[in-house]
């Protein structure tokens, strides 16, 4: 009787599912920062921080706050710092 391994059948095996680790959040934060970048640095930092505050679930915000800022663009890093207070 074959067993039923959902993860095997469901995945493409070669690919790792993208976990909600900070990598995904870094991409999101950088994207937001890039979208606001044309407004100038100060404004972009404020807008990025505000966007995260308005649209991110607390566990996502907590995860990015807890992680280091190395993978973040300068605007995204400053925005995360601002949220950290």
């Amino acid at each position, binding site marked *: 009787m074959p*067993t*039923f391994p*959902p*993860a*095997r*059948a*469901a*995945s*493409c095996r070669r*690919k790792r*599912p*993208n*976990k*909600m*680790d900070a990598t*995904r959040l870094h*991409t*999101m934060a950088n*994207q*937001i920062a*890039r*979208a606001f*970048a*044309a*407004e100038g640095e100060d404004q972009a930092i404020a807008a990025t921080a505000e*966007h995260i505050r*308005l*649209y*991110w*679930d*607390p*566990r*996502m915000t907590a995860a990015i706050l807890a992680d280091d800022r190395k993978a973040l663009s300068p605007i995204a890093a400053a925005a995360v710092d601002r949220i950290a207070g």
Partner: protein
Amino acid sequence: MGFERQADFGTPEVTSDTQVSLTIDGRAVTVPAGTSVMRAAAEIGGAIPKLCASDNLAAYGSCRLCLVEVDGMRGTPASCTTPVAPGMVVHTQTPRLAKLRKGVMELYISDHPLDCLTCGANNDCELQDQAAAVGLRDVRYGYEGKNHLAQPVDASNPYFDFDPAKCIVCSRCVRACDEVQGTLALTIDGRGFASMVSAGQTGDDFLSSECVSCGACVQACPTATLQEKSVKEIGKPERAVVTTCAYCGVGCTFRAEMRGEQLVRMVPWKDGKANHGHSCVKGRFAWGYANHQDRITSPMIRDSIDQPWREVSWDEALGFTAARLGAIKAQYGARALGGITSSRCTNEETFLVQKLVRSGFGSNNVDTCARVCHSPTGYGLKTAFGTSAGTQDFDSVMHADVILVIGANPTDAHPVFASRMKRRLRDGAKLIVIDPRRIDLVRSPHISAEHHLALQPGTNVAVLTAMAHVIVSEGLADEAFIRERCDWDEYQDWARFVCDARHSPEALEPVTRVAAETLRAAARLYATGGNGAIYYGLGVTEHSQGSSTVMAIANLAMVTGNIGRPGVGVNPLRGQNNVQGACDMGSFPHELSGYRHISDSAARALFEQDWGVALDSEPGLRIPNMLDAAVDGSFRALYIQGEDILQSDPDTAHVSAGLAAMDCVIVHDLFLNETANYAHVFLPGSTFLEKNGTFTNAERRIQLVRKVMEPANGPDGKGMEDWEVTQALANAMGLGWHYTHPAEIMDEIARLTPSFAGVSHARLEEAGSLQWPVNEAHPDGEPIMHIDGFVRGRGKFVVTDYVPTDEKTGPRFPLLLTTGRILSQYNVGAQTRRTPNSVWHEADVLEIHPTDAENRGLKTGDWVRLASRKGETTLRAEVTDRVAPGVVYTTFHHPETQANVVTTEFSDWATNCPEYKVTAVQVAASNGPSDWQEDYADLSARARRILPAEAAE
């Protein structure tokens, strides 16, 4: 309402400032100038015999039955082609006319089978009615002469037959195809006695012709020549109930014509303000899924997804679910639970699901499938204008002079609206299409786009910014409008930005692959061609810059002053029937109904007071975030109302991993959909025919959905509408809800949502439909928004910098895949695949340009492997120059293909709307299904095993 056909006034309504008074059969009547005598007579209750006239078609004057006598006028003019004149004295029933009409009728009947008693149209036939009206008693010519009675029936269309023996060649079907649908598939072949209705070329039948099976010809036919097969099978309906279609966001209203609880046919309702009596193949014909054998009608549960399903009672299923949810909440906290509301369900039903999540589960983890389609519209238009909705009603298109269609394929995805748009285009409006594919609208009968900007997928923002560059730098901006209506400082910042040389069409040509001259010409046309209206779809939103593109569109409309009057505006074409409504109802994790942020303590207090429970003030998870969090272990239970995220959401491997990681997945649906392979609880749903409520269409129009049959999900009338299922689950969790009708839910919505304050079922019954906002300021709703000023105050110009997507082609994946829809199938196909619509589209195919195909040795019909860095699938190729070199295209209607195995995790920066429209892929010849497809077929078969219910003791 009993079964009577809707009144037909013979010729279309005319609007005019001048009124004309005349006398018809001794009765005075006043009508707008330009009205026909026939229509004027009908408006005072007269009935001039007619066969070739119908009030949705231009007067034709061919049947010669509607002749009248007019004092002072020679002869007997046809009343359909004779306009009224002041002081005219008309006689519609005289001995002379009676003789003429009887003679005409004799000629018709001499070449018509006399099988009325066994005919499908018996007692519902205009020819029969007119024979009675003119008092036909015999046919002097006999029946032995040359005739057409031996013509074979064309039964090729799955929904209707064409029986030429019964045809009177009135041309109504041909004219309906031309004027109403705009496909021009039909014609009258031959001359004189040899005249015959013909679909397509010689040798074509209805199915092989260009016919799109919209049903306009069937509706127009005055005999049984073109008739629904269902009427032939079942018989004449005995009652009709007006309801709203549950397919796309156009929101057509139909008469569901019934015999008892059996649906005989759906006929578009002429008074429907969205569709004005027109329909498409889905709404009119593709409703057979409601009684399909795959429909699950009993609740089912299982402890884990490797077990077969167990059919159980509602009580057991709900008890099991409530216990599991309770245990998860106790162990992991409220934020481990969430729900997805369905954009296919009613406003009342989506409202209840988000209420259950917020007040029962205790989290804000609620989202809806708008996440994966129009969430950027919500964000973009709210930022620019202040409301998350389109600015116009559909009728507005009839006043447009320049129509700009970007990232939308209306003839396939919004066919009934497309027919109106095509009518306006045939009448002279100019068309600009911005789309990587040559959609049908670019060139179709009597329509040719002035400009088709076949851009590289992913460069929408670059193209729109370049258009703005042309408009501002060439002095075409409407500065008076901007000064009056928008923030002038923001405009100047934006104008400086777009005027930068790096945003010129010439500088961006290498990126967009749109010839600079073409782009300049298109921009000039939009800015200077009169009323400019922009229509857009998912080709705008489903990109990593989806929200930026929506704002770039808003910028274009504002800079040219194309906002706030008929014929202009920004018009998102919504995918699903109630995607606007689902968004309005507070289905997003960050906002309550009416788009009020969850952190707004005043708004939250209103709900807390009404619901008697404290709400979480922090935003919840969006669908992709839920799946991330599930893989992470912090999200454990999901209630999914009428959505198939496994098939519809991107990066299938990630979706399945997320679902497989959860402890309790509840699927509430009609069928065991793909997502149900990973579910622990299945709650059977009800179709739109089985429920009461409201849908809100793409033009913010709220319309009633009326129940015509009992829900199939329970025995002996104990079935439940979907809102009742959600209520039963809430009550199993101890919430104590006691709604007895969706009208009570709407009252709660109105109480808690300022833009719906004036909405109630009673009000909708009375008005037919209402376009929100409906409140003190707009008691009858608002067809066109931002007339005297923007909802947010001043219109906001947002700088939209083009940022290339991270999804890039390279040596391994050199082509760009973009995905879309076709006419006959709908979304994941759960409904339409279970209807004969599959004759038009039985499998997804991959469109590939001849050059790319040749390089790979591929021809149409070959199996090909479609691979991205995410996964691979196989399907058959179709070689076509509809797509540009370097671009391939497919649909996602079939689970065997699952195009989303290939799509990526990239998403819109502001809303996480997935980037379905750009995936770097490779295409190569293949021998058959991929490993993934074989594994998945195997999994599906095992996951769908059902153990029969145990016999009662």
